[in-house]
């Protein structure tokens, strides 16, 4: 009799848990359907109203936020997926990517280091992602170490690996312009600092504006004297433009350097993102 009772009990428990699994799976599929059909806002609403706290839902919530570019929430939810879950590896990869987009690079690296797998493809992907993160950190030694660990015969990663290596070459060959030289050149000839920074058109325009104002000041000084109101007015305007142009040249060099770095970072992130999405078919 006891055995019969135990059997009935186990059977009932099985039914309850299998229904929970089915529910999680159907929710998973539905959210993926919403994301895949450009209904990300709806997916976010659904996830915000889902108070369940289990691995599937946390992953789903993380992926929904990740797809909607709510990266801090995405990283937070991905990190809640427990190590025993089959979604753990994928969660860590996406958590790392979310943190990398937020430039929390140490967190991104530690997310990847938590992945331990015997699967060669996963290890390849891990090394590739770590190489990308270290390139974002501009840590070229570690980048080389990780990128050399990526199996060169791995087809999906071949293209992106080559691209990361090319980006590294571009970063190393980028000659950082000196702020001091830009300022000094603009002091000598207005606009020359901007030409040095690579903005030739802007440099010529600055030269013409400052030159014209100085020409007007010189004419009035020559014809009307130093104390004439026109000399003082145009002289003041010329001085403002002249000093502004020196400052502008310094800022241009700084901004160009920042733009180069951020453009490269965007490309690195894009190259990390592609194999991740294709590997997990998301």
């Amino acid at each position, binding site marked *: *009799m006891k055995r019969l*009772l135990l059997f*009935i*009990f186990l059977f*009932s*428990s099985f*039914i*309850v848990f299998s*229904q*929970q699994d*089915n*529910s999680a799976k*159907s929710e998973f599929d*539905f959210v993926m*359907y*919403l994301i895949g059909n450009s*209904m990300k806002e*709806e997916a976010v*609403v*659904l996830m915000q*109203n889902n108070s369940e706290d289990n691995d599937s839902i946390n992953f789903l919530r993380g992926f929904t936020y990740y797809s909607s570019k709510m990266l801090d929430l995405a990283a937070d939810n991905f990190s809640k997926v427990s190590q025993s879950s089959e979604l753990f590896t994928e969660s860590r990869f996406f958590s790392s990517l979310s943190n990398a987009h937020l430039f929390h690079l140490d967190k991104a690296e530690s997310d990847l280091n938590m992945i331990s797998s015997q699967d060669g493809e996963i290890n390849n992907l891990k090394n590739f992602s770590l190489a990308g993160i270290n390139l974002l950190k501009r840590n070229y030694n570690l980048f080389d170490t990780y990128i050399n660990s990526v199996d060169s015969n791995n087809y999906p990663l071949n293209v992106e690996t080559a691209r990361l290596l090319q980006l590294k070459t571009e970063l190393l060959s980028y000659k950082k312009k000196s702020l001091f030289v830009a300022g000094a050149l603009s002091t000598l000839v207005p606009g020359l600092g901007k030409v040095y920074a690579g903005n030739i058109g802007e440099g010529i325009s600055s030269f013409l504006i400052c030159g*014209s*104002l100085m*020409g*007007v000041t*010189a*004419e*009035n000084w020559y*014809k*009307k004297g130093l104390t004439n109101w*026109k000399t003082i007015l*145009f002289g003041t305007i010329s001085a403002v433009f002249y000093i502004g142009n020196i400052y502008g040249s310094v800022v241009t060099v700084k901004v160009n350097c920042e733009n180069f770095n951020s453009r490269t970072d965007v490309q690195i992130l894009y190259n990390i993102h592609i194999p991740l999405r294709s590997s997990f078919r998301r």
Partner: protein
Amino acid sequence: MFRFYIIFIFLCVVVSGVRSENLQPCNLNSSDSACIFKKADDLFMQQNYELAAVEYERCFYLSSSKEISYKALQQKAICFKQTGDYSKAAATLERIAEDYGDYYQIALCYYLSDNFQKSKETIEKCRLYFDTLQEDMLLLEILTLNEFNDYANAEKTAQELALRLKSSTNKDIMPYIDKLYSDLPKLKSEKTARILSFVPGLAHIYANEWGKGLTAFAINAAALGFGVWQVLDKCYITAYLGGAGLLSITYPGAMKNGVYEVRKYNYRKTLQFNQKFKQELIPLLPLR
């Protein structure tokens, strides 16, 4: 002890049964639509339209019945309308548009979301798919044509609507329509404004913006005057760079701004007319 076991197992079965009911409320292919939409309808009743819209989408996603899919998206569109997101409502209805009523709702939602081009396109599509437009669609077409300042066609459609209403309800709105369209907004020509703007400020005055016109004229006159004065003063570089340089900035600016002011004037007048049209004519119409 035995009794305890029996009660425990009974509770387990009851819980699993309840869960089963919650997880899979009913057969989604069944004809019992009240059962299928229960969760979404409950949320709708609680005015939680955002979540209700998602649940109606779930009904659409899970259903393989055309009837249920159609109803689900219609309900979803209503949720978006309740939240004032008319463009999403229109996009949702476009996924299932079948009959005349759907097309009317799509055109209306686009109109309400200020997407007059899409509204016009939907009405034109409707003209192709269905032989005649009903009165509500005619009214929408008039409103849309008014937004495009296409008053000639809007008046023609309004007359068609008036004739239809006269024969169906015996209500004559033709005098109101004639009165409204005899008092059309007098719009200014952008072409004229462009020509007038060669004299700085004149296009502004044409657009009834006297203050801005006089200011634009004064600034340009000052720049020109300064240049002339410097020539007379034999300061040629100052004349060229100070006078002409300044004028090269202020003159084209005044020209552009003059045309912009005319465009703004026309927009205001159109808006006034369209508001008046809506306020005076719509209450007279015996439409649903």
